[in-house]
């Protein structure tokens, strides 16, 4: 997972319907770059059948444990 370039960001923003100038695109690239780099270790490694609701399952298991205490 690599950080998007300013040029790519400008294109993505155009597609999203909220166009930004080249300067703004450069600033966005600078702002979110570290998030992409920080998440790079995880990105592309997740198992096929992992879905977002697994978070709620893990949370609910904790809640059940607390009530049973």
């Amino acid at each position, binding site marked *: *997972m690599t950080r998007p370039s300013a040029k790519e960001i400008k294109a993505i923003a155009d597609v999203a319907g909220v166009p930004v100038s080249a300067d703004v695109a450069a600033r966005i690239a600078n*702002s979110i770059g570290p998030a992409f780099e920080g998440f790079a270790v995880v990105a592309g490694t997740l198992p096929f059948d992992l879905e*977002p609701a697994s978070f709620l399952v*893990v*949370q609910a298991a*904790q809640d059940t444990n607390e009530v049973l205490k």
Partner: protein
Amino acid sequence: MSATEPALLSLTEVAQAIVQKRLSSREATQSCLDRIAQWQSPLNAFMAIEAHEALAAADDADASLAKGTLRGPLHGVPLAHKDMYYDAGKVVTCGSRIRRDFVATSTATALQRLKDAGTIRLGSLQMAEFAYGPTGHNTHYGPVHNPWALDRVTGGSSSGSGAAVAARLTFAALGSDTGGSIRMPAHFCGVTGLKTTVGRISRAGAMPLSQSLDTVGPLARTALDCALLLGLMAGADADDPTAVLGPLPDYTAATRQPMKGLIIGVPTAFYVDDLDPEVAGILDDTIAVLKREGADIVQVELPDQRQLTAACQLVLAVEAAAFHKRWMIERPQDYGPQVLMRLQNGLAIPGVSYLEAMRWRGPALSAHLAAVAGVDAVIAPVAPVAAPTIAESDVGNSPDAEAVIQRLTRFTRPINYLGLPALAIPSGFTRGGLPVAMQLIGRSFDEAMLLRIGAAFQRATDFHDRVPKSA
């Protein structure tokens, strides 16, 4: 400041005094209004002050009580909240120009539950624009000033809540925490702040920023006060299906339990790295108090928190941009420069990256819970520094603004991504007189344990009792 000034009582104390008719609601309300009159100009903590309405409501509460009608455990207690909780018929600005004249047509569930408990409204409190900022700056309404040092920030986004509770202008206040917005003002202003588990309190009628990360919670003077408020607000809500069903613990009873025998973890890395020396010293002092009160202190090795922070940023940026997209198209000129910049960040994150960050949340929470399996809570600083000055943190939309924000909130965001509860407790002061808080981080839905430890810590210390001198 008088020792008998009602506004100096804690929420629990004032509620008991009113119920027992040792104090009237009018006296409590007038005391808060007197302090608001004294502090509002230097602090800018209130968005709206509703003195006449508050006194009328107080008189009504007193008349009801005289006839034997008790509305609830907070009968006649005056409160003010962050200006993002919808209150039917009231303007709710969300700290923005865009909603400067927005009149709510419904009342937030959390707020309604406090009203049902008998509270009355003092007005509304300042906040960062759309709750998207950790410092307390606000382009449209001016910064909120820290009552401990007026040239310092309060932290945000619940900036008015932190300042108003610290200066004893309200007995407690609702805040919201999406990336640290309750804990940061609690830390910078020297008050107790509870970030609740995602799903613990209904978010119906609370302005959204990020549906996966937003949490409702109180800022108050003590852990006991937070326990009282949590007990009143928590639980299922037909208007918010994400609010979790099921029985609730007795939170106030939990605060009476001792600390002895509990195991508290201290992270071996990340939360102890690159701390300001005074914050590091206060962390050591806090650990010493916990030990003295009978807790066992152990080291815990947490998973890489930088990945959690990154995932949090991806989720928050996308969800905030999605909420605001229509206004970003139609009214970009009406946002403050920094908020617009941060909203634009969300445009650049591909859908696949966002969903990867969401899919990883379950395994990341599992890994965290496994790492803390042997401990009752983890203790860590809320931020690596005490309150910076308003001038030095006024970074606007400069190229390094996001980096400054990320540094300031690096100890709070991982907890938001994991959806965990955390209690910020006043833990000391710098030599310059600025408050510093530590956060107790718990397991999902185990706010009771944090309140138990926090209350025991506050029985052994007086940092939460200290009041800033008049401006």
